[in-house]
């Protein structure tokens, strides 16, 4: 936390906020900016104002957080195009109607400066974290168009939700969390559409209802114990087969479980970061991960079992065929 000097008057505080929001002071050239403290005038008047350093990176956000001396958070909205004559009066009028005040006045250059800084911040996100977001979105959506859409939505949502960003998590963690939610929304939408389309052609792949069911009896003992996976021993091919099965099964998980598995096990994010990104408690995360792993394990067991059945059927069918026309000496 970087401590700023005392603001002796609301006017001075406004000036400081305007320089935060637009990168220039309102006292210069009479830039017309009003700082609106939503958390009451008392908070505006508080002399000891601190600004979170990470927030400095985002000059131009419409809504910003200022921590006052007592640790209170005052949400400060930067509104342009209103001539500042008396900061108190302006703050009062805006408190009553925050959106109506600027409409009467023409747009000033301060707006474009603010807009530019916002765009600069968003560009920085895209520049610094774009690759990570892209790989993540592409891997999950498997479509260039959808991945692009998801990144765009993520950045816009991040800009709007920046006042909720906690410096405790890294920017990348935070953005991945938002992207993860966006992807989950996308898959929920797809599932809804599929359900409406009513194409109930379940091909046996993916999560079945039985995979999500409890495999224990009332006393908590295994009712349906896990079967050993028949590994044939040819490492790379086996792993590729398992990875493909895992992929199918993860995609078929309920979106909330899938996003947890993605962040924790596939991206390899530390558990604490996943909790921050998805806004979960540690216990919630453990429960979700346990449910997801159990479902994935059951799904893969079923997939492998089906594959083995197919193989044994094929093997059983092959000798019969060789005895047939082939066995009669056809060329």
């Amino acid at each position, binding site marked *: 936390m970087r401590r700023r000097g005392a603001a002796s008057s609301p006017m001075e505080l406004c000036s400081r906020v305007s320089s935060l929001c637009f990168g220039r002071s309102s006292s210069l050239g009479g830039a017309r900016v009003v700082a609106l403290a939503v958390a009451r005038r008392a908070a505006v008047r508080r002399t000891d104002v601190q600004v979170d350093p990470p927030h400095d990176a985002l000059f131009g956000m419409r809504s910003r957080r200022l921590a006052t001396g007592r640790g209170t958070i005052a949400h400060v909205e930067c509104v342009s195009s209103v001539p500042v004559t008396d900061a108190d009066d302006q703050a009062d009028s805006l408190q009553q109607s925050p959106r109506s005040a600027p409409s009467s006045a023409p747009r000033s250059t301060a707006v474009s400066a603010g807009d530019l800084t916002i765009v600069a911040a968003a*560009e920085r996100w895209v520049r610094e974290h774009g690759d990570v977001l892209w790989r993540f979105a592409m*891997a999950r959506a498997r479509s260039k168009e959808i991945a692009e859409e998801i990144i765009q939505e993520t950045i816009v949502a991040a800009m709007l939700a920046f006042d909720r960003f906690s410096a405790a998590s890294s920017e990348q963690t935070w953005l991945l969390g938002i992207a993860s939610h966006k992807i989950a929304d996308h898959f929920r939408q797809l599932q809804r559409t599929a359900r409406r389309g009513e194409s109930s052609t379940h091909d046996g792949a993916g999560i079945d209802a039985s995979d999500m069911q409890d495999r224990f009896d009332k006393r*908590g003992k295994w009712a349906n114990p896990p079967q*050993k996976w028949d590994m044939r021993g040819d490492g790379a091919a086996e792993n590729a087969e398992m990875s493909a099965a*895992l992929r199918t099964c993860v995609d078929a998980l309920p979106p909330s479980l899938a996003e947890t598995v993605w962040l924790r096990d596939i991206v390899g994010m530390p558990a604490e970061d996943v909790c921050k990104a998805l806004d979960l408690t540690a216990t919630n995360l*453990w429960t979700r*991960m346990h449910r997801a*792993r159990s479902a994935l*394990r059951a799904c893969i067991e079923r997939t492998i079992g089906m594959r083995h059945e197919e193989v044994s059927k094929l093997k059983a069918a092959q000798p019969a065929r060789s005895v047939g026309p082939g066995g009669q000496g056809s060329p």
Partner: protein
Amino acid sequence: MISFFRDVLRVLRLPCREQTHLLSRQLDAPLSRGEACGSRIHVLYCRSCRTFRKQIRLLRDLAGSAGRELQSAGELPEDVRRRIVKGIQANRGRDTTQES
């Protein structure tokens, strides 16, 4: 020391359903020494839980290697990057117009 034995005994009394919770939790957070010891003892004599542990560990490793492949999957293409930034600017413009 007392808490260690208390944890061991508590975990040993847990049925397989709770044991699988612990086995999964172990992949996300360290258990206490007593819990870890109790869980290990349970797994020694319970074949199903042993299989479960082996399989969820294998799944975690497979997922991890899928993630590593992801790292080398490529970068955000320049044309997409440009479109995204353009979209942000357009969105911001719309936002400001709505505000004013």
